[in-house]
């Protein structure tokens, strides 16, 4: 009796607590509801949905056996799995109206505990009953059936269709059952069908803008797409339901990706405080520990996960994914192998394993693994895309030269081999010296004509904005033909990606992302004059306005961009930081930093060791560096309304020049542009005053002045096709072959497919006796599949002759004449080559 009274008293106290509650459902707003009203299942679940799990549990208990299923559901949310199972069992025993919901609840609990076969058996019972008479089921029962099909789809992916149908039936039976739609979205997410998933989540959010489940699903989707909105969306979900474990898990993963390990730990703590059986949260906790070398934390988390499920395949799959997102691909493969060993049917684990075997360059094994994943689930877009790509790549040409394996489509192979292989060898030597490390095997470099193929290679789906990607000693990038001419420099991109090989390798893949990117951009600038990112008015205005990250948080600029251009700015910012570090501490600072990371030091400790300075103090140094380098320019720029907008005296002068130019006042225009130019020393916008001054110079016939202005641009901008083309024309007109050659080389690294450019460069090179260049260019002409290949081969033979390689020249000529014995010019060359040096036969 006393216990009952105590229980009643607790209920009354709960009801007073509920009196101020706002229950957020689309049909039942229970402002000021009493506990008695909350006995309704929806009301209880609404409390749970608002994160008020104590209240929800109390209300469910108060309702007695009629809400046993609801109690079970709440207990599951709290991670009290045994109690939940008892509640479900009780509901089933009394044949409660929602007994089927209890059945699937129990089946899912079995799954969570790793008793997969029993879970499948239990789910099959529900499925069988549904097949028999599911049409008459209630909305909640349809939902239960859908959950059963989801479980059963572990062994037969086609059953996902049945799940979708059941969820749809649930929603049709009760359009207020928004959970049905959320589950559809989640199901699509598991198949990487992003558009369909988004549609489902948006549909729910259209009804209820703060639906926590839909927001959490949307956050997962945004996370997968690399959207900067993911964190905000997850936080919105948590604002709606502070106890929503999936949202906490998303937040934890986002922190982990941003290398904010402490924040990741805090987020997992919050998740585990709600549900200590959340294996995903333990997995992220384990990953956070492992990534920083905290083996105790890793072991603790693993032990807790194994206490829930003795063979937690998903735990290891999550670890694998975390490792991969930190570029620890070998470790990712290791964890994924462990997951597959536990559950050979796990599509998720097979997918992670296969994808990363491919990233490590083990194409046959990776392909075989993905075939297994695809056979188990043919609806997985990621796996299908990747297998389709591998089919296409089976026709690629592989050139093994020196320290590289170049893998390209047959159409691109010849041209890529002419340029890329020598460039990569040059880069290799430079980087090996600087970073005191060399790869243990040949570097595999894949080049894709089609950007969609490159994107699939990189992330399994179309839509990646990057130009290249590094997986260590396996690199991939867009071919120049994958983009519009003039949009990127394919030489500097190749150099950039190879630099990652060295910084990742030297640090055992522990280098922070910002530092690896910063060094890669810096190495681009070292490779060739004008390569690599350069300062722009937009960048400097953003810097001045505080829109860029301090050194201590520079990684956030890559991982959590606050506006669209921040990632791009962060690349350049990181490279400036590296420049400053080198200036202040010498070139040895980088090998020292990478070694510190290799040894497992966190960023602040690594910097302390390498620079003997605390990380925070480097912010001040960088500020001084920026002031000394860009002080004048910064004084003439102001940030506009949004990031990337620019105002200030520079813009005013530029505008004045443009207006004067439009009204044909050349002198006034020139004066204004020169004024603008002087305001930004050390900064050369690609469409800035120099371009206009060049055009004005041409209008008055001053070619020398035009060239001077154009070179200000072309010496700084790596893909300025129009200025380089104009500069080349001017040099050609003046007969300045050496300057012409430089301009043409720059053009080729932006757009190499115009045979006429190669011919022009070959001819200029021959004129100045630069025969190796002439030979290379004649080979490039042949690689462009010229309209007259025999003529092109003849010119190559001439260039070989000029270079003194008479054996190769003769071989070439004989090859030409074998095809075309009547080719008179080649005949004459053959006779020439047969003459002994210095005289006729």
């Amino acid at each position, binding site marked *: 009796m006393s216990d009952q009274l105590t229980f009643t008293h607790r209920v009354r106290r709960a009801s007073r607590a509920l009196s101020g509650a706002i229950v957020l459902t689309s049909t039942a707003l229970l402002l000021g509801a009493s506990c008695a009203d909350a006995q309704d299942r929806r009301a209880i679940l609404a409390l749970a949905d608002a994160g008020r799990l104590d209240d929800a549990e109390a209300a469910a208990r108060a309702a007695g056996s009629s809400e046993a299923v609801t109690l079970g559901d709440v207990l599951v949310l709290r991670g009290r799995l045994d109690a939940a199972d008892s509640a479900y069992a009780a509901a089933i025993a009394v044949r409660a109206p929602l007994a089927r919901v209890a059945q699937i609840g129990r089946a899912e609990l079995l799954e969570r505990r790793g008793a997969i076969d029993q879970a499948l058996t239990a789910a099959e019972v529900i499925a069988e009953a549904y097949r028999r008479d599911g049409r008459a089921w209630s909305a909640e029962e349809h939902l239960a059936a859908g959950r059963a099909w989801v479980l059963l789809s572990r062994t037969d992916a086609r059953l996902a269709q049945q799940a979708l149908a059941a969820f749809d039936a649930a929603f049709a039976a009760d359009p207020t059952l928004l959970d049905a739609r959320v589950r559809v979205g989640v199901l699509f997410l598991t198949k990487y069908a992003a558009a369909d998933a988004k549609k489902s989540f948006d549909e729910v959010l259209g009804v209820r803008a703060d639906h926590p489940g839909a927001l959490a699903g949307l956050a997962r989707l945004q996370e997968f797409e690399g959207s900067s909105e993911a964190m905000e969306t997850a936080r919105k979900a948590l604002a709606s339901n502070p106890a929503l474990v999936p949202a906490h898990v998303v937040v934890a993963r986002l922190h982990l990706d941003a290398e904010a390990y402490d924040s990741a730990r805090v987020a997992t703590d919050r998740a585990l405080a709600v549900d200590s059986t959340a294996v995903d949260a333990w997995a992220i906790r384990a990953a956070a520990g492992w990534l920083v070398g905290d083996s105790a934390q890793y072991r603790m988390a693993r032990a807790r996960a194994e206490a829930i499920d003795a063979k937690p395949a998903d735990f290891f799959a999550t670890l694998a994914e975390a490792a991969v997102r930190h570029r620890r691909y070998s470790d990712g493969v290791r964890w994924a192998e462990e997951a597959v060993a536990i559950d050979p049917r796990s599509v998720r684990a097979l997918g992670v394993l296969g994808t990363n075997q491919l990233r490590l360059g083990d194409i046959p094994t990776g392909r075989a693994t993905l075939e297994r994943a695809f056979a188990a689930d043919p609806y997985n877009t990621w796996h299908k895309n990747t297998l389709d790509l591998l089919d296409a790549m089976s026709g690629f040409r592989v050139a093994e030269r020196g320290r590289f394996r170049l893998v390209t489509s047959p159409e691109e192979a010849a041209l890529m081999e002419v340029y890329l292989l020598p460039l990569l060898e040059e880069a290799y030597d430079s980087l090996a010296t600087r970073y005191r490390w060399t790869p243990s095997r040949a570097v595999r470099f894949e080049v894709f004509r089609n950007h969609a193929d490159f994107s699939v290679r990189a992330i399994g789906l179309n839509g990646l904005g990057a130009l290249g990607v590094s997986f260590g000693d396996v690199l991939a990038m867009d071919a120049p033909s994958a983009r519009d001419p003039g949009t990127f420099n394919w030489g500097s991109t190749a150099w950039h990606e190879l630099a990652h090989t060295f910084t990742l390798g030297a640090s055992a893949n522990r280098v922070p992302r910002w530092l690896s990117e910063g060094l890669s951009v810096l190495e681009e600038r070292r490779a060739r004059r004008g390569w690599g990112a350069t300062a722009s008015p937009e960048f400097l205005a953003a810097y001045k306005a505080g829109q860029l990250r301090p050194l201590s948080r520079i990684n956030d600029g890559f991982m959590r961009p606050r506006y669209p251009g921040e990632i791009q700015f962060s690349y350049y910012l990181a490279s400036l930081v590296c420049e400053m570090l080198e200036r202040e501490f010498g070139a040895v600072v980088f090998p020292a930093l990478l070694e510190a990371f290799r040894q497992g030091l966190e960023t602040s400790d690594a910097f302390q060791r390498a620079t003997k300075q605390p990380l925070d103090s480097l912010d001040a140094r960088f500020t001084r560096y920026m002031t000394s380098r860009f002080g004048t320019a910064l004084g003439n720029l102001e940030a506009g309304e949004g990031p990337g907008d620019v105002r200030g005296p520079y813009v005013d002068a530029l505008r004045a020049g443009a207006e004067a130019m439009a009204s044909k006042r050349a002198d006034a225009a020139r004066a204004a542009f020169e004024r603008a130019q002087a305001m930004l020393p050390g900064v050369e916008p690609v469409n800035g005053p120099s371009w206009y001054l060049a055009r004005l110079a041409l209008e008055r016939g001053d070619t020398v002045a035009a060239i001077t202005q154009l070179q200000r641009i072309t010496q700084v901008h790596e893909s300025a096709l129009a200025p380089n083309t104009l500069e080349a024309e001017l040099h050609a007109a003046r007969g300045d072959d050496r300057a012409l050659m430089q301009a043409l080389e720059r053009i080729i690294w932006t757009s190499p497919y115009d045979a006429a450019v190669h011919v022009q460069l070959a001819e200029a090179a021959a004129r100045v006796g630069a025969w190796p260049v002439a030979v290379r260019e004649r080979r490039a002409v042949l690689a462009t599949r010229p*309209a007259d290949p025999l003529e092109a081969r003849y010119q190559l033979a001439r260039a070989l002759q000029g270079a003194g390689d008479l054996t190769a020249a003769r071989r070439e000529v*004989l090859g030409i004449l074998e095809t075309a014995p009547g080719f008179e010019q*080649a*005949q004459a060359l053959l*006779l020439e080559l047969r003459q002994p040096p210095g005289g006729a036969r």
Partner: protein
Amino acid sequence: MRPSHVLRRALLTALLLSGVWTTSLAAQQQHVLIITGLGGEPAYRAAFADVARRLHDVAATRWRVPAAQITALVEDPTRDPQRFRGRSTKDAVAAAFLAMAGRVKPGDLVFVFLHGHGSGVGPEATVNLAGPDPTAADYATYLSGFTQQTIVFVNAASASGDFTRVLAGPRRVVLTSTKSSVERNETQFAGHFVRGLESLEADGNKDGRVSVLEAFDYARRETEKAYEAANKLLTEHALLSDSTLAATVAFGARATSSDPRVAALIAERTALEEQVTALRARKSTMPEATYDAELERLLVAIAEKTRAIRAAGGTP
């Protein structure tokens, strides 16, 4: 008006009157008929006229076809009255064939080039001219009398593919820019075909002449590259009716000389070239070093013959 059977009788009559057959290559004449149709828009009008003009010039200057043996019928002959003989109508086309029939001798080469907007299927396939359009069947009638000449018929229009099977026959090479009447998009074949002829880029074996096969291969290849460079799906697939014959029919004059010494050198060189061809056929059966040595010997000998021809004042 029903010109077809009337025309056929006229053609046969003309041919009978043209004299005794001869197969002497040295006496072979080339006859060129260029027909371009209605453009519909200024850009197409200009493009078709440009192709006609360039082809006219190739025939006149490179192939050295006498002016009287070149007929260009276009949409607007006033654009270039020096080159364009008349407006391209069905009657004018029929009359041009008739006139050509009156000129040709046995063994001559007849080159017909047709370009414009094509349509229709099978024998009813046409290229759009002003007024009624001659069909493929009509063109077959026009050509029916040229039994002792070699015919090269190029239809570079869209939807031209069916002309191949309607016009194919002995001593005929038919080229079309598309493989069927279904490929109806604007074609690029004509421009590349003409460029190959005028630039000699199509001269694959560098013998100073462009064979029909070389011209076809060049145009097809360059067309494909153009689509690839523009990142567009290839919507035209050129066809050639007889590649064997096409390899033996060439535009332009062979090297000859009235000087017996030079003529003998040319003949010797031709024999050496034939030995190279025979050697290549045996390549797979020979040791590499033996093949290479023999090839070089022959090629050096050919080169020396060419040098000798030049030294003797001949044109190789």
